[in-house]
């Protein structure tokens, strides 16, 4: 199988076990090394501090906890990320709508296309996330 993102470390934040397995398989099939999964905000924040991360896939609602603090921490470090959610994009808080969203359920090709935008070329993608974040009133 084609593994376009070999060597990239992707943080997976998701609280639903079955969906974790699905996304782990999808990420592994794309060649990514999965960091996590984290199923809570604190767990994710600890991993962001401790681990090297190239990108992140972020569920928005973690058992009732919103994952926006994780998004903040990632943006502050210039780590690109995509929200993965069953919610419609319109229900994102103001200031977060500029970030990419994968609406669950999604096909591995959609994940792949999004990661391609986030990861290549690595430097500009990190900068553009920062720029978007700087413009957005948080």
């Amino acid at each position: 199988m084609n593994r376009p993102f070999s060597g990239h470390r992707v943080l997976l934040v998701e609280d639903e076990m079955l969906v974790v397995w699905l996304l782990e398989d999808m990420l592994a099939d794309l060649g990514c090394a999965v960091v996590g999964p984290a199923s809570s905000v604190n767990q994710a924040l600890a991993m962001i501090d401790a681990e090297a991360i190239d990108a992140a896939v972020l569920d928005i609602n973690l058992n009732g906890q919103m994952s926006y603090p994780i998004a903040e921490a990632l943006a502050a470090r210039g780590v690109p990320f995509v929200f993965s959610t069953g919610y419609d994009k319109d229900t994102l808080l103001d200031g977060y709508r500029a970030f990419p969203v994968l609406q669950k359920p999604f096909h591995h090709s959609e994940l792949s296309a999004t990661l391609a935008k986030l990861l290549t070329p690595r430097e500009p993608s990190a900068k553009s996330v920062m720029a978007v974040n700087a413009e957005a009133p948080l």
Partner: protein
Amino acid sequence: MPSEERKSKAQTAAESDVDSFRKDLGPFVVAAETTRMAMVFTDAKEANHPLIFANDSFLSLAGYDREEVLGQSFDFLLGRPAGPDALAQVEATFAGSSKNDFEICFHRKDGSTFWAAVFISPILDKAGDVVQHFASFVDLSKHKEEQDHLRFLLAELNHRTQNTLATVQAIAMQTLRGAANKEVVDAFEGRILALSKAHSLLGRKLWETVSLRDVIDQILQPFGLNDRRVARFSVEGDDVRLQPKAALSLAMLFHELATNAAKHGALSNGAAGKIDITWQAAPTPLGDQMRLRWQESGGPPVTLPGRKGFGSRLIEGGLAQDLDGQVHLDYEPVGVVCQIIMPVRREAEEP
């Protein structure tokens, strides 16, 4: 200030008018003062429509004492963030150039807001000149709250449906991984995702109606609908609104056709193949009917499939019934043709 003084003279005159009503129309004034319908009278001779009468219901709705509102302009009640649109609406209604009822957001004295349906009607003197306006208010707070709650519930339900479909996808992939052939797994996953895309589109439109173009966009985008490098699709027709059930059925149908085209038809042989989607809606004795045609061309020569799979069963059997119409699938040598005749509503825009 002189203008204040003049206004207060006008105010005094207007109030004495009310006093004279009170004498002439005793029981009616008592009724107006005590009815549960919030109401005010304003002075039409002043540009800013100052209040000359406010009944008890109005005062309790707005949270003011009577002396705090009498003499104040009507706009004062709208409160600080009353936008130009709201002010223009009020002005147009007083001027009689707009319909005389509308919904607007007011501020109570304590800063809280309430939505009210307002009805404004002019009061004429014997000469036919507008001397006052009568305005009544129906508090819509509860109604708006219920609407917000309903929207919240619907968003939550949509979210849960999508999450459930994601779980179904995950269960299927875990169950079938390695056990079934990849083609079967892909077909299953594709159908779940098509269903979820249609659900998501319907959810965004609050399960009312959705546009045919939106359905086509959602379903065919993964098949290169908007691919700017290769134009593989042409989509032509005046948009029509679809009921939820018809939208779901058409979404599944387009998904099956496109999947088939990607495997065997016009999307299976590089850039040569093309799919034309055209439709017309027209009135018939049975109501508005749409005729839609999916025409493939430029693909490899078409051969009749040996066995009818789930796809063609879905297209020819189930969907015709769901759409309350007819679906014909033909394996013409130049390419697959699917024709659909079904009832629709022809309006192009949402109400």
